[in-house]
């Protein structure tokens, strides 16, 4: 198994500078300062690294869009606001190996011509911010940060900033507003951050995992990185696996691993808990469409589904999903999909910033309809209404939170309509909190009661 990001994680001392250096840490900086910044951008382009924050946009491309002609200072901001339900990989990396992110920030800043970089940490992860701050202190004393890094002309300051704990502040422009000390409202784009970002200056925003992959790319070269993985899904990806599996946790996988192997192999999830049947998977964090067992293991055309951007997206939104941020949520046959969808809708309703009308009003409406259906007060028309409301939000909002709220709802109805109908037709049977409509049997009349949803 290749490990680039989590390399050395079994050694607890890697959290500190000496331990990290013993594992070869900070070598990429020595190499980087002998290279020209644009050559590093070129290497990152060659590596095929794609943004690990959710959208999967080429990191090298993003870097090359940075406005280098403007005479304003340039900024690099690391998005460590990880708040997507089901995703907890950045936190793990920062907790265990904070220096890998810091090294990535230094090398990336060098490549982008940045003098001052920021790491925006989610408010709830206060201990992670403390780890990072300690590590930043160590890096300053070792001469990796500050003026004339390792005797070169390159100087960099790195600031850890803690948010107040809002999902919306993970959206890059809301993050910038928050970092500037304002309310975390997403900006209306264009202009994009590459032209006008933090304090109106050209800015690159990348996810923790994207930045942490850069040192390896600089040390070993972009070509070496692009050989890992398959096709356009190069390198490794951290997957945070949770739900009804035997071995939940964060795994570094080589992209291209079959989904079936990931779920059932003893090296990864280790199969479904208590030997139950797999019912559904949310493959990339709560925002991506949910897929039923038969579509997550194999694509609609019968190909084995792989953990890659392309394969998970095979079939578009009709029968596919997205790799997203790698929050892999597994559900067994005791799960009530309606209840799960309601829970997600509740999250998005709570986290909508309220700036634009479709998201502000629509997320609340969807939650209410789902609440009604789940508690046995829904009607057949409510199911269509639900899909219709999700369509009114999707694509019409300022930022992607609206889409993130609409997709899980639309896909749950698309793939598990029978379960919604069951709730409508048998209100008496869905009032117990641990009820479950048995999807595996595909019969409306059959219902099993799990003792508890463990």
């Amino acid at each position, binding site marked *: 198994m290749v490990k680039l990001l989590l390399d050395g994680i079994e050694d607890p001392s890697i959290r500190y500078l000496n331990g990290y250096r013993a594992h070869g840490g900070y070598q990429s900086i020595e190499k980087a300062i002998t290279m020209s910044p644009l050559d590093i951008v070129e290497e990152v382009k060659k590596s095929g690294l794609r943004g690990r924050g959710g959208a999967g946009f080429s990191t090298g491309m993003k870097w090359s869009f940075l406005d280098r002609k403007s005479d304003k200072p340039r900024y690099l901001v690391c998005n460590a606001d990880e708040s997507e339900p089901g995703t907890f990989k950045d936190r793990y990396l920062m907790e265990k190996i904070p220096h890998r992110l810091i090294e990535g920030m230094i090398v990336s800043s060098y490549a982008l011509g940045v003098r001052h970089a920021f790491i925006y940490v989610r408010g709830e992860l206060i201990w992670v911010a403390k780890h990072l701050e300690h590590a930043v202190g160590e890096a300053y004393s070792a001469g990796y940060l500050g003026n004339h890094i390792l005797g070169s002309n390159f100087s960099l300051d790195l600031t850890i900033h803690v948010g107040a704990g809002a999902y919306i502040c993970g959206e890059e422009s809301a993050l910038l507003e928050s970092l500037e000390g304002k309310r975390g409202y997403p900006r209306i784009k264009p202009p994009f951050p590459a032209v006008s970002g933090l304090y109106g200056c050209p800015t690159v925003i990348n996810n923790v995992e994207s930045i942490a992959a850069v040192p390896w790319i600089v040390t070993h070269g972009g070509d070496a990185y692009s050989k890992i993985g398959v096709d356009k899904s190069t390198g490794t990806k951290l997957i945070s696996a949770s739900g009804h599996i035997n071995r939940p946790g964060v795994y570094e996988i080589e992209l291209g691993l079959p989904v079936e192997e990931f779920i059932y192999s003893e090296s990864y999830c280790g199969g479904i808990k208590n030997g139950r049947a797999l019912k559904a998977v949310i493959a990339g964090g709560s925002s991506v469409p949910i897929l039923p067992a038969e579509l997550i293991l194999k694509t609609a055309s019968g190909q084995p589904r792989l953990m890659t951007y392309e394969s998970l997206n095979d079939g578009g939104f009709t029968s596919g999903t997205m790799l997203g941020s790698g929050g892999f949520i597994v559900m067994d046959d005791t799960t009530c999909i309606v209840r799960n969808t309601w829970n997600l809708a509740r999250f998005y309703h709570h986290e909508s910033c*309220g700036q634009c009308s479709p998201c*502000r009003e629509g997320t609340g*409406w969807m939650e209410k309809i789902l609440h009604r259906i789940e508690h046995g007060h829904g009607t057949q028309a409510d199911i269509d209404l639900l899909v219709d409301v999700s369509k*009114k939000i999707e694509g019409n909002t300022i930022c992607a939170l609206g889409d993130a709220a609409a997709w899980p709802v639309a896909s749950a109805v698309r793939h598990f309509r029978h379960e919604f109908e069951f709730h409508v037709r048998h209100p008496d049977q869905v009032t117990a909190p641990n009820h479950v409509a048995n999807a595996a049997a595909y019969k409306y009349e059959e219902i099993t009661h799990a003792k508890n949803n463990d």
Partner: protein
Amino acid sequence: MPKITIDSIEVEVVQGTTIMDAARQIDPHTAPPAMCYHSGLNGSGGKCRTCLVKVVQTSETNPRPMPKLVPACRTLVEDGMKVENNSSPEVISARKGIVELLLINHPLDCPVCDQAGECDLQNLTFQHGAETTRYTEDRRRYPTKSLGNLIQLHMNRCILCFRCVYAADQLTDGRDHGVLNRGDASEIGTYIEKSIDNDFSGNLIDVCPVGALTDKTFRFKSRVWFTKPVYAHRQCETCCGKGVLWLKGHEVLRITGRRNAVGEVTEFICNTCRFESKSLHHWEVEGPAPIDQRSVISQNHYTS
């Protein structure tokens, strides 16, 4: 100068014009509806999403369409851009959706609302709304708040267009007025109910597209269509001194700023003109104020 085609009508505009302003140059009545954008307020727009249009060709050099509907008020034109507004079923359907969403928590209390007759939301609903609601849950409710002795806030009616926030920010000093809370719990507020006390605070009433901010000195005095608007001016030290007097007989019931064809206030007026000059002898009357023919106010069967 870039040329842009909107619903097959071509218009030439200066560089840096938005699709909205280009469409208004063609005809203010067919331009996309704007509930949040106000040309006199910096940074406004982009929030209500009623002005979404479809860009079928981005520019002369980039013939590709834009992937999503874009807000006309915040998207700049490019040479050779082709836009579909009222001619696109997708746009009309999205607009209907937005109106529905704007109304689900709206109290629909037009019969007792002072804004009725000159309400942008009422007009928008008339044009794009459905006859009935599909929303069966309880509507959001807030207590009515007093923002000082001149302005009343009915948060229930607010559509969170942020116009008043920008107006308060840009026309008055101090930062008392803003949005509290998040998501659909957001509300307009003055921090700890601090009253708005400022020479230009009355303009918040004028920029509000709905009846959320109303004039306390006019509340419940009359329906607007029973009054007659006339243009008038006066010598004023603080503002332009150009207002609209709303008359019933010779009595001045209220005073507002002047509006352009799309209902935006063109020049902001001070509180002395608005609230303390309610008598014809304070003013030099110029003549009847232009009112859109389709507006209920222009029917005006009731005044002498």
